[in-house]
């Protein structure tokens, strides 16, 4: 594993398996009374978030602190409208304080790749624009495996706003690494350009018909898990879909769809990276059903991030 985690593509299958195995051990720490291990004592980790995210940031912060690292949160300025300090200057100033790692969330795709060129610290991508979110994909895989075990040959459907989703991009890669089959489902307006070629190159299926896929009529047959992505209501003003109601009827995981799904497969797993729009892309009681692993995903998040920090920072520099 190299010293950055910028993209899910940076990890081989072996790397993914190792991180998930380590995460299992880290998960044990979560259950203890004294949630502290000395492994990263003396390491300094900066959570540099240019985009708001209470969930991911606190997850990384807890992960670092439980491993005895010094973690500091910095809110990055530098939206495209406030052209003050350049991104380069911002990160190099922090890097000059000899920190060990920068965990970065940024509104612009590719920001972490660029930062990695400019600093000596390890760079961990906590979400860059609409590009990737590698630790999310890892925790999704972890939560999924906890429920249904080995993912080789399993079929996962990812449904929602693919165009604007970094979770989709990272998950396609990581699930692929673990041998799972992926089908992505969205209306044409929410599929990224060039998806036809892209899906061929990366070996995932695409569909505009959620019911067909959930009923097992798509390329990869019956689904073992469904990952619902958040749809932003603001997308309506971009003309991506007419009304929330229409979106829910055509692409939402409604109570009715869930009933038909569990009738075919009572163990089907429902995932959602959060935050959820209950009633829009996912029915409220589906989100709370026994098939849903939404809270497990959050719990897994800390363990997985501890594992990532361990693998990037515990060994020799």
């Amino acid at each position: 594993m190299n010293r950055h985690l910028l993209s899910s593509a940076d990890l081989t299958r072996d790397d993914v398996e190792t991180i998930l195995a380590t995460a299992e051990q880290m998960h044990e720490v979560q259950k203890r009374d004294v949630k502290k291990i000395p492994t990263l004592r003396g390491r300094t980790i900066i959570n540099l978030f240019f985009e708001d995210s209470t969930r991911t940031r606190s997850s990384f912060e807890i992960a670092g602190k439980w491993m005895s690292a010094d973690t500091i949160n910095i809110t990055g300025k530098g939206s495209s409208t406030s052209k003050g300090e350049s991104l380069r200057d911002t990160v190099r100033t922090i890097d000059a304080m000899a920190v060990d790692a920068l965990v970065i969330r940024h509104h612009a795709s590719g920001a972490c790749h660029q930062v990695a060129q400019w600093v000596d610290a390890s760079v961990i991508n906590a979400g860059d624009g609409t590009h990737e979110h590698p630790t999310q994909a890892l925790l999704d895989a972890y939560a999924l495996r906890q429920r249904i075990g080995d993912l080789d040959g399993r079929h996962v459907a990812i449904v929602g706003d693919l165009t604007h989703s970094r979770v989709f991009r990272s998950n396609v890669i990581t699930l692929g690494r673990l041998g799972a089959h992926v089908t992505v489902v969205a209306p044409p307006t929410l599929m990224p350009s060039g998806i036809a070629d892209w899906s061929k190159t990366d070996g995932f299926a695409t569909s505009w018909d959620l019911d067909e896929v959930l009923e097992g009529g798509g390329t990869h047959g019956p689904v073992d898990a469904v990952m619902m992505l958040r749809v932003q209501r603001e997308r309506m003003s971009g003309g991506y879909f007419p009304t929330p109601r229409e979106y829910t009827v055509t692409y939402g995981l409604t109570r009715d769809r869930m009933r038909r799904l569990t009738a075919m497969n009572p163990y089907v797993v429902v995932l959602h990276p959060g935050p959820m729009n209950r009633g829009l892309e996912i029915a409220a009681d589906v989100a709370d059903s026994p098939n849903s692993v939404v809270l497990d995903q959050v719990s897994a998040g800390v363990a997985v991030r501890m594992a990532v920090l361990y693998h990037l920072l515990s060994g020799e520099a």
Partner: protein
Amino acid sequence: MVAAVQPTRTEKLAREVLTSGDVSRALRRIAHEILERNKGADDLVLLGIPSRGVPLARRLVTVMAEVEGVQVPVGSLDVTMHRDDLRHQPVRRLYPTDIPPDGIDDKVVVLVDDVLFHGRTIRAALEALAELGRPRAVRLAVLVDRGHRELPIRADHVGKNLPTSSSERVRVHLAELDGEDSVTIEGGDR
């Protein structure tokens, strides 16, 4: 402890210092000693240090069951995250830590490992234990003590004392992991 050393293909003048028979006799004796010291099996918990300490702990518990008719709780304690040399090596993989259901609070924990060498592994184990609870007492049982301690640590129960030079490699083979029981020493060239 041998785990830090990469196995080599060439067996440089490896000589066997414990045969399979020696190993099983030593384990029987250690099991008896633990019970004797503890005056029975009450509140005993055996925790093997991965990787080879784990099958050793299990074997001890089997012997104790034969002798006392009691199933002593047994588990594993991975010490990787508490090692003091993490920064000086590539990232190490973790092993499972498996604490029996009744925990370790107010218990007599016996740590079990294959080789006692510098003592740093045991220091890390004591630190790891401290985070899991508060045992009444902690004891140490090892198959081989090869000397060269760098910390004030000693074993309560020893299978065999093996004077070695630091450049030699002590290898413990156990049927569960290596197909046969044997302890060898190799190397020693300086």
